[in-house]
Every structure is written in C-alpha cells, then in structure tokens.
C-alpha cells in the first residue's frame, strides 16, 4: 500500500487544528495529567530524609506508573473520536470521496493523536524530574534518576500511545456513538500497561537487552494493531454500515 506524505500531512494538520479549536480536548490534555499526578506528587514531596528506601521506591514508582498511564488515556480519548466523530458531524462521506487511502487517513489521524500525547508525557516527565531534583529529598532523586524508569518512560510512552491510538481507532471505526467509543477505547488500551508496570516496579528488572526486546515486542504489537485498524476502515462499512462480500470489495483503497 503506497502512502502519499502530502495527504498524511493534510490529515495530520487538520486534526491538530481541530483539537486546538476544541476547548474540551485542550482542557483534557492539560488538566487530566495534572489531576492524575497531584496526589502522588504530594506524597513524594512529603517524604522526609528518614523515609526508608522501600517507601521511597513505592511512592516514586506510583508516580512513574501514572506517567505511563497518561500516554494511554489521552490518545485513547482522541482517537476514539477520530472516525465516529467524523460520522457524527457529517464529514465522513465527503472525506471518503477524496483520493485519500485508508492507510493515509489512519496514519494522519494516528500521528495527530500520538504526538501531542507523547509530547505532554515527556514534558510532564521532564518537569517531574526537575521538580524532584529541586525539591524532593535526595533519596527520591536517586531512585528516579536511574536507567530503568527513564528507559521505561522514554521508550514505552510512544509505544503505549501508539497501541492506544490503534485500538481507539479500530473501535471508532466500528462504533456509532462517540461516548461508547471513548469508554471502550480507554478500557481496551489498558492491558499492555501491565508490562510497563512490571518494569517500573522492577518486577522485571530491565537490562538494556530485555528492554529492547520488550520494546521490539511492543513495536510488533503496535504494527499489528495499526494494520488491523487500517483493515477495519472499510469505506462501504463506514457508509452503509455493512461490509461488502469479499469478492466485491474495493481492495486497499
């Protein structure tokens, strides 16, 4: 399937413009992570120098875990809206009558959901590390400023976000109601988080090799999810609600 970068860019730009003009999305992107992190952060900064290492480790781990939930939750809500939202506002049919291929459409929409979510996550993480360095006790900084949590955050944020977006879009393609789509997407995007939890809490102690292996497994999983989501975006099903029999289908267009 060939991809025209110009069309992907057009979809991407349009999606970002829409998000920017949608106050609900802007507020969600800004407020939700802060709400998530406020409580654990207070706990973290309340730790005194007398706190034992297991307490420090537990509290720091919970904050880092919540940091990994952000790239799962945020794009899930956005991507779940991506197709059913087009249908909702009556723009789906005009969109599908253009030469855009389904892969281009999915890629443009997917990137527009993944990149802002990953950016928000990285900014939050950077802010968190800086805050810990400035105001938390040294034991906390020592716990946070290590390869495993940094690797987990940097590597798994985009991978989890991609998974979340693909699942969200697949559900959005099949859904007829925006809210149901968003709720199902959020639920469906959570399972891979389990692995990240194990790494964050060091149940699986990540070496560089194991981290790369798990990362690659995630990449494969993400590719499969993207492929599945793109396959599900069938013009006929989107327009008339049912897919044409196999011999009638219009291929990968």
């Amino acid at each position, binding site marked *: 399937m060939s991809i025209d970068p110009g069309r992907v860019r057009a979809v991407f730009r349009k999606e970002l413009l829409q998000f920017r003009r949608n106050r609900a999305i802007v507020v969600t992107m800004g407020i939700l992570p802060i709400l998530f992190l406020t409580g654990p952060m207070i706990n973290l900064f309340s730790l005194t120098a007398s706190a034992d290492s297991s307490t420090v480790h537990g509290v720091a781990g919970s904050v880092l875990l919540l940091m990994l939930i952000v790239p799962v939750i945020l794009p899930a809500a956005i991507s779940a809206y991506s197709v059913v939202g087009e249908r909702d506002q009556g723009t789906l*049919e005009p969109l599908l009558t253009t030469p855009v291929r389904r892969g281009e459409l999915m890629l443009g929409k997917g990137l527009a959901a993944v990149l802002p979510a990953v950016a928000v996550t990285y900014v939050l993480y950077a802010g968190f590390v800086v805050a810990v360095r400035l105001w938390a006790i040294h034991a906390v900084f020592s716990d946070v400023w290590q390869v495993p949590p940094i690797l987990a955050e940097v590597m798994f944020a985009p991978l989890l976000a991609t998974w979340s977006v693909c699942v969200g879009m697949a559900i959005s393609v099949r859904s007829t109601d925006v809210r149901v789509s968003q709720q199902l997407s959020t639920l469906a995007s959570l399972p891979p988080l389990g692995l990240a939890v194990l790494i964050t809490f060091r149940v699986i102690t990540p070496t560089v090799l194991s981290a790369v292996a798990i990362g690659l497994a995630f990449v494969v999983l993400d590719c499969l999810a993207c492929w599945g989501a793109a396959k599900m975006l069938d013009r006929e099903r989107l327009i008339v609600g049912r897919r044409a029999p196999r011999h009638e289908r219009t291929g990968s267009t």
Partner: protein
Amino acid sequence: MSPPDLGSRPQPWFVRRRSGVGYRPLAWQGWAIAGVLVAAAVVALLVVHTSTARIVLVLALVAVYNAVGWRLSGPRPDPGDAAEEAPTVAVRKPVERTPEQLEVMARLRAEASMPPRRSPSGDDAIAVEGLTKRFGERTALDDVSFSVGWGEVFGFLGPNGAGKTTTVRTLGTLIAPTAGSAVVAGIPLTPKNAVAIRGRIAIMPEAPGLYPRLTVAENLEFFAGLYGLSDVRPRIEQALATVNLVDRAGDPCNSLSKGLRQRVAIARALLSDPRVLFLDEPTSGLDPVASREVHELIGALRERGVTIVLTTHRLEEAERMCDRVAILNTTLRTVGRPDELRERLFARSLAVTTVAPLDAPERVFAGIPGVEGWHPDDDGGYELTVSDPRAAAPALTRALVAAGADVISISERRRSLEDVYLELIDEDVEARRP
C-alpha cells in the same frame, strides 16, 4: 503574479496574549523556539546547583523568550483573532479590497464562465452496464445501464430508496457493485482504479459535511491537500470566487447559514477541477434564493464543460437544469431528454374548454382530421388525442363553432416531467400491488 492576500496576512510566529501580558507561539516556528527554550531551562536547572543561579537563569530565559516573542510577533489579537479562538462567535469585519484584489476577483469570475472544456477523447464521461447492488437480501440497484456524455448535465430522479444515492456512491468508489461494470471519468471502475477515479471526480453529498471549527479556507485547504493539489491558495480563491464567498474565507463554518455552507461545499467540489461532478440533492433544504444561486452555479459549470450528475427530488429543477434525465426505481425506468420523455410517454393532445358541455361531443369530434380520440377531462372540458396539434386545432375550432359551442379555449396540453415521473412511478406501484 503572486496570489492576492484577500484580507489575510502572513502568519507571525508569536502573538501577544489577549490579556496583554507576554506572547504565545502561533506558528510551528514559534512552538519550536518555545520548546528549545524550555529544554534549555530544564538542562540548566539540572546542571546548575545553586538556587540563585537557577532563578537568574530562569528569569534570563523568560526574558529571552519575551524578546524573541516581541521581535517575531504580529499585532495584538483583533476581533478576527478572537473569532479564531472562539469560533462559535462570528465576527466579520467589512472587507476592503485593493484594486489588484478586485481585478483578480473579476478575472476569476470570468474564468468561471470559460468556454466548454471537452474531453480529448470522444468516449463517454460515464458508461454504466448492468450495474447491480445488493445489500444482503435487499436489491438497491438492479441491472442499471446508461451513459453520460462529456459536458452533459445528467439528472437522476426517483422516489426515496430508489437507488439514486447508491448509484452515485458506487460510481464514486465508496461502495462496490455486486455485478455490472462502469467507466467513470474515462477510467474503468475497478478496485485498483479507485484512487485514480476519486482524483478525477468530486462528489457533493446532500449534507455539506464541513468541519465546523475550521474556517472556510481551512476546510478547503484540507481537501486541497487530500487531492494533492499544488498552488493551493489561488485554487481556493478561484473556487471561492466561483461561489461568491471570497470575503467569507476566514469565517468559521459553524457561523455560516445553510445556504452558505452549501456554497462552500460546492467550492470544495470544484477545488480539484473535477472532470465529473456528482451533486446529491444540492438544493435540499435551501430557500428559493439560495436554490437559484445553486442553479446559476450549475449553469456556469455546464458552460465550462464539467460533466454533472445531479440527483434530485425536485422535478422542475431537473427539467430546467438537465440535458437528460434518468428515472430510477431500483431498475432504470427510462432515460432521455425531458421533452423526449414527454413525447415518448404521452400522446400529444388538445384541451378544449367550453361554457357548457357539448350535447353530442362524439358527433362534433368525429371526422376531424388528425383527431385520434377524445375523452372528457376532470375540469368539465375535453381532451383530444391528436397526431399534430397545430394541424388539428383550426379544423377543431371550425367544428366547434359549427356545432354552436361557446368555446372558452383550445390549447395544446403540455405534459411536465412531473407527469412523466408520476406515470412511471405509479406503474411501479401498481405492478407491486398484490
């Protein structure tokens, strides 16, 4: 010549906040600068260990940001910017145009009525053979065949559920036919050719389908990107000039009336300069003035040689706008020019109205040359089937006068496309009755 500005200005990288304090990034370059400065702040905070130095560094970076923002910013947001931030509030200033802009608009309007564009080949724009579409057990289209010539305005008529929209969607590669073949815009309708076909045609569905939070220009820019068009701005201006909406380019679509949205949708359809344009109920829900504007647009497109397939319920619209019409009711009932259909379906007739009923009409009408039959009509007059109304009328007048009838009128009865339509659809209803 560079494209006219048409009321907009180059986008600055930063813009002063509406509160008047500080600047916020507006273009991606602004965001990039802000990102670099934030990253620099993070690195500096991690590297520097003394609190005073940290505070000084942060303040210095904030100062740098504001200096850059001030240097690269546009003016403080005006009402237009406010409309951009809160698109539900439609704020529109009267647009003042330079002579150059007016000249460009006049040129674009003139181009909209260019001489007809003809296909390089003599083949049909659309050729459909035995097209059938079934949704499970339900047949939406059954063995439909027709062709549309290049530059023709072709009308699709039929009751709800007749398969008009299914035909358009099938030809537009949105849904796959169950059987049959077609050539659309000169390209065979196959899965492999779907993208190429969609690149040559444009479909305007019944609902305008515009992104409400985006401006008119942003909507068109998006679709221009999907068609992979170059020189986007002049094309958008040309399309907007064609529908007389150049001065609304910066308005959010959710602030437009239904008629204006329909015009934007037409502009969108014209953006790619399509060889074949499908218009699905283009005047649905529009007031008479807006409908007339759409009709004028269709007329202008016809002049340019764009092949138009018009789906409509409005029979007078089809009769006025279309070179040929097809009446569809799952199967294709008929295709032809409106006057041709009238002649094909209805015998030519003369309507006679008299002050009082004739005593013996059979004797009066018998033997008049050209009169093939007669029957009383619903208004108390008579309808005579004739081979040639112009030849039969004088003899008929003489016969009526000779019979002592007080004649009010003798006129040729003209059948409308509506009569043709109702006749055919009634036949279907009768045929389906158990």
